[in-house]
């Protein structure tokens, strides 16, 4: 059942609508069902979640009788952004994931944010799917604020990701959807995977397998599920960042999600004007490259890779 959870009139004969699709058991609801919510499309250039929303529903519909709870799918929290290939909210140039929990009396983005929060409250679990940005490629991972680790890590272990990153708390992140929901008792997992403006089908399939495993654990799904893989779990101290020291064109020498040793060449920053190498970048420690630069043009400071020790 498709529902509109927020709507705002646009100036010329158009209504902005935030929609969800609710799937419920064929036998109807008795009021005791568990509810999982899948949200994505907060950033208009992150598309990996679009396939997940499709594939999850396709598989449910293939075996509808196994559905024992409520599945709410919100494919586009920022539909104008997705449609116009804009990361933020068009016209406001505003990062939607910095305005939660929003305000009923605020501007259009804040009003929508408050409606989204209002609709998600009460979910037993929310999965907020992100896809990095156009610059970096990420392996499927869950990112958890250390304040919520006790509640969220057990759920995160079920959703078949490669990695769980427990990061320190930062005040600025208190404006995210996930922080806002977790702080009011709605457990919310942030998934990062793939790269902006692209869909990595095998990552999507992997996450959908995991969502079914989690749904089975919650009693929402009674069908067969694959056993989730055991993720690596780490904290900030085990992650090192490699940033560009100069500008130019980055050409990687390593593969994503592969081991490197200290001193290995991560890649080179090339100067197409002079034909020279501006910088050769080396690994500072042994580890596995879980984030790798995808967009070739870099400036001084551009993130090149993250390595998990």
């Amino acid at each position, binding site marked *: 059942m498709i529902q509109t959870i927020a709507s705002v009139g646009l100036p010329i004969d158009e209504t902005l609508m935030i929609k969800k699709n609710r799937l419920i058991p064929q036998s109807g609801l008795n009021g005791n069902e568990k509810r999982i919510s899948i949200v994505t499309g907060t950033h208009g250039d992150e598309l990996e979640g679009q396939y997940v929303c499709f594939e999850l529903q396709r598989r449910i519909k293939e075996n509808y009788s196994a559905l024992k709870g409520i599945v709410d799918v919100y494919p586009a929290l920022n539909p104008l952004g997705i449609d116009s290939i804009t990361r933020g909210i068009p016209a406001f140039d505003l990062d939607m994931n910095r305005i939660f929990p929003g305000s009923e009396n605020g501007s259009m983005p804040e009003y929508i944010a408050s409606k989204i929060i209002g609709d998600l409250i009460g979910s037993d679990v929310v999965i907020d799917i992100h896809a990095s*940005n156009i610059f970096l490629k990420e392996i499927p991972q869950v990112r958890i604020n250390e304040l919520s680790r006790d509640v969220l890590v057990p759920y995160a272990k079920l959703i078949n990701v490669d990695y769980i990153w427990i990061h320190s708390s930062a*005040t*600025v992140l208190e404006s995210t959807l996930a922080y806002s929901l977790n702080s009011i008792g709605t457990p919310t997992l942030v998934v990062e995977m793939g790269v902006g403006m692209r869909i990595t089908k095998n990552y999507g399939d992997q996450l959908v397998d995991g969502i079914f495993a989690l749904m089975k654990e919650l009693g929402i799904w009674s069908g067969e599920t694959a056993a989730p893989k055991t993720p690596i779990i780490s904290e900030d101290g085990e992650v090192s960042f490699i940033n560009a020291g100069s500008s130019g064109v980055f050409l990687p020498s390593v593969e994503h999600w592969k081991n490197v040793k200290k001193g290995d060449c991560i890649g080179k920053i090339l100067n197409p004007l002079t034909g020279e190498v501006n910088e050769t970048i080396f690994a500072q420690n042994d580890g596995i490259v879980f984030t790798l630069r995808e967009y070739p*043009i870099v400036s001084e*400071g551009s993130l090149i890779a993250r390595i998990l020790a």
Partner: protein
Amino acid sequence: MEEKLLFELDSVYRDNMRIKGFSFGKGEKSVCIVGATRGNEVQQVYICSQLIKIFRQLEKQGKIKENKSIMVVPTANSYSMNIAKRFWSTDNTDINRMFPGYNLGETTQRIAAGVFENVNDYEYGIQFTSFYMQGSFIPHVRMMKTGFENVELAKDFGLPYVFRREARPYDTTTLNYNWQLWETKAFSVYTNATDSIDVASAREAINAVLNFLNKNEIIEYSCHQGYVSQFIEGHTLVNVKSNVSGIFIRYKDVNTRVTKGDTLAEIIDPHTGLPVDTIKSPVNGIVFFHADQPVIYSQAPLYRIIPTDDLY
């Protein structure tokens, strides 16, 4: 005047980006003034350029007080300004959401760090900045409630209003907030223009800064003393919205007295030309902010009004 290179960003495809500071006077670091951190803040650059011109004259005339120094940073984001973009030219991040910065971090974190390490040890910090929504304000000094803010000192600008609001999580990475954490007495000055030059409003802001510096014995300058500033808390303002979208025809400007029931604006159907909403003032008061985009979304905040009794 001494011109200092505060930060330089190399580029393969463009000329390097240089962030410059212009210093006047010698001695203790008294006041730092920062202009545009976003590419559309041309009014802010203009105001800084005019202040630099004035400080240059004052320095020649020996009117910068002994053992006081002033630095002006007109812009920290010329790259975006040169390509007519509000946020950072490549990744669209906001430099004014990157403070105090990190010199080993991402590009805009490095820019913020490069600026902050040069501006963080002044006694006073003044930033000319802009609001995320398109619109006009009564010129005012804006502060966040951090526990370090000083409302009485803000009145020394002599602008009509000193406005204070609660800090939100995303404010904690602004220049103003971090200045305060580093014990600089920080103020944000808002004029009623951003991406265009409003000379009259700029003059008012320039006068306010000179007034402040004169009252705090940093310069010797005789000028109009401005207003006895009124202090207002953000939550006391009355927000006026429309439930419908369309063409926004505005009838009341900022700094206008309105009476409950006055028509502030009309929303026109863009196809039929018929009014679909008439926006009335819910209170007696003074218009503090109005939106100024030609077309509006439903739920858009159109006016913010300072409520007054105004019984006559």
